[in-house]
């Protein structure tokens, strides 16, 4: 995002909408006109300020982004649909359609680390650190996840060199593994947490067993790993044939 200095009147109405807090007041010389300026290196191109229509002079402008800058908008602006997944946002359909896709099978867990969430955003270099922490465990990185497509070498977890300094609002390292591997994956995430510059939010996914127990939650309790009291449940109403679809 940029602010056109020929239009900006320095009112600052845009500043509070900035998710990265990277719009500052500046002036060229003492006593001169105050204006707002975006720190483009910190900006993640989420376009929240633009959509807020806060600028009274239409000074906010989103320049066309070329590679590798273009990854910022695709990971940070949920209105952008990824070419790879055809899903708006940073991740996949994950549990939301598991009742028809069976992406997460009995005996398996999904474990994700969402870099930059909450609030801070993250450089993709942090995502690489997490990938490299998990790659030696030979976990399966979710192929439908747009971040996975930026891997230069899935075996080592190295990302494409030219994207490492790009900053995004958030991006998700998404894995699927047998539940027996869950503890070592979580241990690896705990360890790499000390090596990153930002934060990441961790989640775990599990099918519900026939007796209504949730194997992943049982595993967490046994390992004395705390988890939030609130969560998500796919309630199993999905079917292959949708009402009114005529197929």
């Amino acid at each position, binding site marked *: 995002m940029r602010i056109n200095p020929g239009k900006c009147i320095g009112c600052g109405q845009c500043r509070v909408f900035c998710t990265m807090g990277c719009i500052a007041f500046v002036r060229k010389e003492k006593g001169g006109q105050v204006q707002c300026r975006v720190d483009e290196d910190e900006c993640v191109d989420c376009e929240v300020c633009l959509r807020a229509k806060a600028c009274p002079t239409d000074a906010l402008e989103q320049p066309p982004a070329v590679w590798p800058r273009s990854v910022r908008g695709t990971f940070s602006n949920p209105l952008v649909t990824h070419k790879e997944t055809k*899903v708006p946002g940073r991740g996949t359909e994950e549990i939301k359609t*598991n*009742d028809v896709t069976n992406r997460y099978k009995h005996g398996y867990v999904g474990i994700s680390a969402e870099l930059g969430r909450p609030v801070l955003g993250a450089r993709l270099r942090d995502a690489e650190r997490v990938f490299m922490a998990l790659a030696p465990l030979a976990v399966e990185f979710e192929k439908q996840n747009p971040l996975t497509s930026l891997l230069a070498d899935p075996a080592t977890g190295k990302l494409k060199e030219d994207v490492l300094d790009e900053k995004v609002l958030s991006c998700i390292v998404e894995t699927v593994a047998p539940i027996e591997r869950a503890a070592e994956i*979580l241990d690896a995430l705990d360890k790499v947490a000390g090596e*990153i510059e930002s*934060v990441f939010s961790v989640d775990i996914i599990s099918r519900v067993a026939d007796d209504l127990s949730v194997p992943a939650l049982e595993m967490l309790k046994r390992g004395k790993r705390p988890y939030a009291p*609130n969560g998500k449940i796919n309630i*199993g109403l999905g079917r292959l044939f949708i*009402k*009114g679809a005529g197929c």
Partner: protein
Amino acid sequence: MSHTLHRQGTADNLSGDYVLLAMSAKGVNAVNSSYALKDFFSIINKHDWANMGEVKVGGAYIASFQDIVGGVRDTSVAHAVFRDKDEFARVIAQVKKADLGLSVTISGLLGNLNETLEANGIKPHTVEVSLGIKGKTERLPHGDLLQITTMCGHGMVSQALVRKTLVDIKRGRVSLEKAANLLATPCACGIFNPRRAQLILEELMDTWCTDEP
């Protein structure tokens, strides 16, 4: 895409926060699913919702119901938020009865969700929980702010906007309700719960200063 997970809060204020979303699966049953998604929104609109939306159009605090439904496509994810557990249970009952075939995911306190499902004779299929935040957590803003900002899982609600609304409320420039509704506007999916935000803001009025980190 865990945008309705990782909502932070107290057991008390999270008990007034229930998210519901419906979608078809790309490459499986998405073709012509828009009709069912529109039916889903029609069910939602017959109840006392706190927010609803579709990301390409926006949430109910920037778009009309007609615009939201008009923007529904086969690839849409339909979202809605409720503040009352009993009303949420009634919605779940109606969605089940409609038998749309869409995949439906709900978010909230797990104990309350399970009670709702049991009352409606629904067996949960898959569960996802948050294991918290790792890394440089000392860089995060105060937890009071995170209770509000994390209601938009895409991170569209800035901490600066929350701080500004707190100052504006304290100075009498805006009502609690209007401030909460303003905070809902950047959330394009319509999963931000402004009624819960209002309760949190009201609580913070007594304890919050403007110089917290």
